[in-house]
Structure formats: C-alpha cells, structure tokens
C-alpha cells in the first residue's frame, strides 16, 4: 500500500525534473523566442493579408466574415505555437546516433520521459506565445468567445494539443529507427498537420471530401476544433463531444506509440551490437 504512492511520487518527480531541464534548455536560447515570434507573426500577417484581399471581394467565405477570420487566425497562431513549439530534434538525434541505447539502461520509461521533455520545451515557448497574443490583442482586435462554456472548452481543447502533438511527434521519431534522416519525416509531418488541422486554411473552405477525411484524423483537433468551439460554430454538446474525441485521440496515439516503441527498440544496432 505504501510502495505504490512512493513509486508514483518518484515517477512524477522524474517527470518534473525532465520537464524543468527541457524548459531551461529551451528558455536559454532567447534569440529563438524572437525568431519564433517573427516567423509565427509573419505567418499570421500573411494569412490576414491574403484573407483581407479575398474578403474584400467576397464579404465572407465558408461562414467566416473578416472579424471571424481574423479571430480564426489568432487562434491558429496560438494552436501552432503549442503544436509546433516543442523540441523534438534531440529525441530523434538520440535514436539516430545510438544514444538511445543508454536510455534503455535507465530506470525511466522512454516514452514518458520524452513526453515530460516535450512538455517542458513547449512551456519554454510561452514567451513567443505571450508576445504574439499581446500584439494580436492590441492590434488585431479578435472577437471574444461565443459564450463562457465555449471559452472554457476551447481552452481545454488547446491544452489537449500538448499530448496530441506529442503523440504525433513520438510516432514520427520512431521512424528514425529505420531511416537516417529525420528532416524529411519532420517536414512531412508538419506540413500534413498544418494542412489537415486547418492552421494553413480553414477546413470549412475545403471540398466536402477533404473535410470528411480530415474529421477522421487527429490533426483536426489542433486548430479546427478549438476555433470552432471558440467562435460558436458548434453548440455546447457538440463541443463536449469534440473535446472527448480529442482526449480519445491522445490516448490512442499514446498506446500506438507504445506499440511502435516496443517493436522499434528491437532493431537498435549500436557499434556492432
């Protein structure tokens, strides 16, 4: 009865230590905050310039007028900062250079340790998010949430992006056991995620078939779900259902990651081992 809480406490302490180390590592590179803010800010401003030109001609597209579209891309900025803000190259590099063999010797679960590090690195990205949100609130005048429930559920949906994005990232770094280069895998995943999440362009503007496919993929919860909830494009019950589905995807991706890890680790070959 007493060993379980102790083991649990020890596990959480390890998670927290890894999270703090990763946060500090990320926070140490202050130039990256500036660059991250500038890159994300450019993406946001480019999207706004594009839709400003389009909406000047059409008035509204896919149910988005200028106010809603502006708010949509501010939400997309936030969700992208969370979904793409984590550090993943280090974990991938450990597999590529064989250091994963050392990880196998440690009394720490590999997947859980990487999850703690990933979360820490996302928290280290908070200044970028803070700068972007402050500038957006001051100059872009985004709409308020459709209701209190919509606001609360959209925040829950954004927070769930952390385990969701980790699940996707972990699956992709598993591919490093079979390929020498992680860049291709990283770029492909990010591009597909940006497209099917709606971060690049609202899914409501895409053909019905693409929307139907996207609805069955986990990426949709990265931008479309929180923005639909926030803007009141779904009612409260639908919003709860979407958040529940997002939770289900987090669990499914975690379990899938576990299965892949158990298989991938068998192909580790280090220094003739």
């Amino acid at each position, binding site marked *: 009865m007493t060993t379980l809480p102790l083991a649990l406490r020890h596990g959480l302490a390890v998670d927290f230590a890894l999270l703090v180390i990763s946060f500090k590592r990320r926070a140490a*590179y202050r*130039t*990256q905050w500036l*660059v991250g803010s*500038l*890159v994300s800010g*450019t*993406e946001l401003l*480019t999207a706004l*310039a*594009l839709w*400003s*030109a*389009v909406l000047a*001609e*059409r008035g509204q*597209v*896919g149910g988005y007028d200028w106010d809603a579209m502006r708010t949509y891309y501010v939400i997309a900025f936030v969700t992208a900062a969370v979904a793409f803000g984590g550090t993943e190259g280090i974990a991938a590099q450990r597999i590529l250079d064989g250091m994963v063999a050392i990880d196998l010797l440690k009394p720490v679960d590999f997947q859980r340790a990487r999850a703690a590090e990933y979360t820490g690195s996302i928290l280290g990205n908070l200044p970028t998010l803070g700068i972007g949100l402050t500038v957006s609130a001051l100059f872009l005048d985004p709409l308020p949430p459709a209701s209190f429930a919509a606001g609360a559920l959209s925040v829950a949906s954004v927070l769930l992006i952390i385990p969701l994005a980790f699940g996707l990232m972990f699956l992709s770094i598993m591919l490093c056991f*079979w*390929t*020498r*280069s992680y*860049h*291709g*895998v990283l*770029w*492909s995943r990010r*591009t*597909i995620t*940006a*497209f099917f999440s709606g971060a*690049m*362009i609202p899914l409501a*503007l*895409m*053909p019905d078939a693409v929307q139907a496919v996207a609805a069955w993929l986990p990426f949709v919860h990265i931008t479309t779900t929180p923005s639909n909830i926030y803007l009141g494009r779904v009612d409260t019950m639908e919003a709860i259902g979407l958040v529940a589905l997002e939770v289900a995807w987090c669990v499914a991706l975690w379990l899938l990651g576990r299965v892949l890890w158990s298989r991938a680790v068998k192909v580790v070959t280090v220094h003739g081992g």
Partner: protein
Amino acid sequence: MAVRPRHMASTYARLIWAQFRAITEYPADFWTMAATGLILQAVQIAFIAVVFANVTSLGGWGFHAMLMLMGFMVIADAVTEVGWDGIWTVGQRIITGDIDYKITRPMPVMMQVGASAIGMQAAANLTTGSIMIAVGWTGAGVSAALIPAALLLLACAVVVQLTVITALCCTAFWMKGPSVTFAFLGAQIQENATRFPLQIYPRFVRGALTWVVPFAFVNFVPVSILTGELPLWWLAFPPLMAAVLLVATTLIARAGIARYESAGH
C-alpha cells in the same frame, strides 16, 4: 587567368559528385526526402486551389499566374538545394572550428561549405516546380517567344536565392550559436510572403521584399515581367540585382572569414 575558374569548377563538381555518391548509399533517406518534397508541393498547390475555389483573382492575379509564381520559387530553391545546401551548416562549422580545415584548401571557403551537402528533396522539387511553370505558362497564355527571357530570369532567380541565403547564413560569423537564425528567418518569410502576389501587402512590405531583402526577384518580378504585369524593359533589373548581390555576398563572406577566430569562436 582561366586556370583558376576552371580548377574551381572542376573541384566544385567533384565535391558535389562525392555528395551525390554519399546520398545514393542511403536509398531510404533519398526516397523519404523525395516524398517529403512531393508532399510539400502538393499541399502548396492544394492551398492555392482552395483559395481560388473561393475567389477568381488575388491582387489581380489568376490561378495560373500564381502557379508560375510558386514554380519560380520552388525551382530557384531546388537548384540551390542541389548545389549549395551545405551553406546551412556554416554556423555549426564556425562553432566547431571546421572552417580551419576549409581555409587550408585551395578553393573558396564558402564554396566548399556550400557544396558539402545536397538537399535530397530537390529531385521532387525540380520536377514539381517545372510542372507548375509549364502548366501556369500555358494557362496564363504567355507567349513562347518569352522562353529565352524566362531562362534568363530563372538564372537570375537562382543567383538571387543563393546569394541572399548565403549572406544571411554569413551572419553566423558575427553571432554566437550554431544555428543560422537569420537565414532560417529569411527563408520562412520568403516562403510565407512571396508565394502570393505582393499587391496584397502594404507598400512598405512590397518595397522591403523588392529592394531590401530582394526575394521578389526570385519569383514575383520574373513572373510579373512574363505575364505583362511589368513592362519588358524591367528585364534589365534582375541581372543587375543578381550581379550586385553576388558582389555584396562575396564581400560579406570575406569579411566574415576575416573575422573567424577558429575553434572557440
């Protein structure tokens, strides 16, 4: 006088060939990167298609002119990926002192660094970029008589792409850290901003992208000339800009190498 350029060209070709042989040793990586290139371009085309499913023109540009715009950017980028992708490693090489080794060899340092890697996604990008230009060209009704002009503009676009990125990478000689932050930032801004006609941006953004960090000369200016948005006498500007950037980048690289202090820099 002719020996040095010939020697440089021959050594450069050998370096790139060595890289090519190295990447063909890892076919899985090659196909991963080729597939990545295809995915990136497919998503970009899908993006434009979705936009044009909702509007007839963007800043006065139609779908086919937009395809040409993207095609020029993709090809200019792909050519630099084939022959100059190593430039992205210059920050790491400065930090580790690897430039020491390059300095001792009888070839320009930046050329050795540039030729030290090949971007394997370039194969797919060259193919898709060519298709984009061909389809865009036909759809926009651009005259075949402009093909020589297009080839000149494409050559200038490659020089502009290569020199701007190299100049931005060279800031690593003055900044601490292994990553080429400004080059990364420049490339991201280019990819985000210049895939659309510059008319959709405020005047100062247009001015900055044309005359300060002249990414507009990679795709916007060439396509504007070919589609008649700009008069033909604008053909004089891209070669001039390419020449100015070549000289400026050479001077920046030389100043950077002069500042280089070996390992522990």
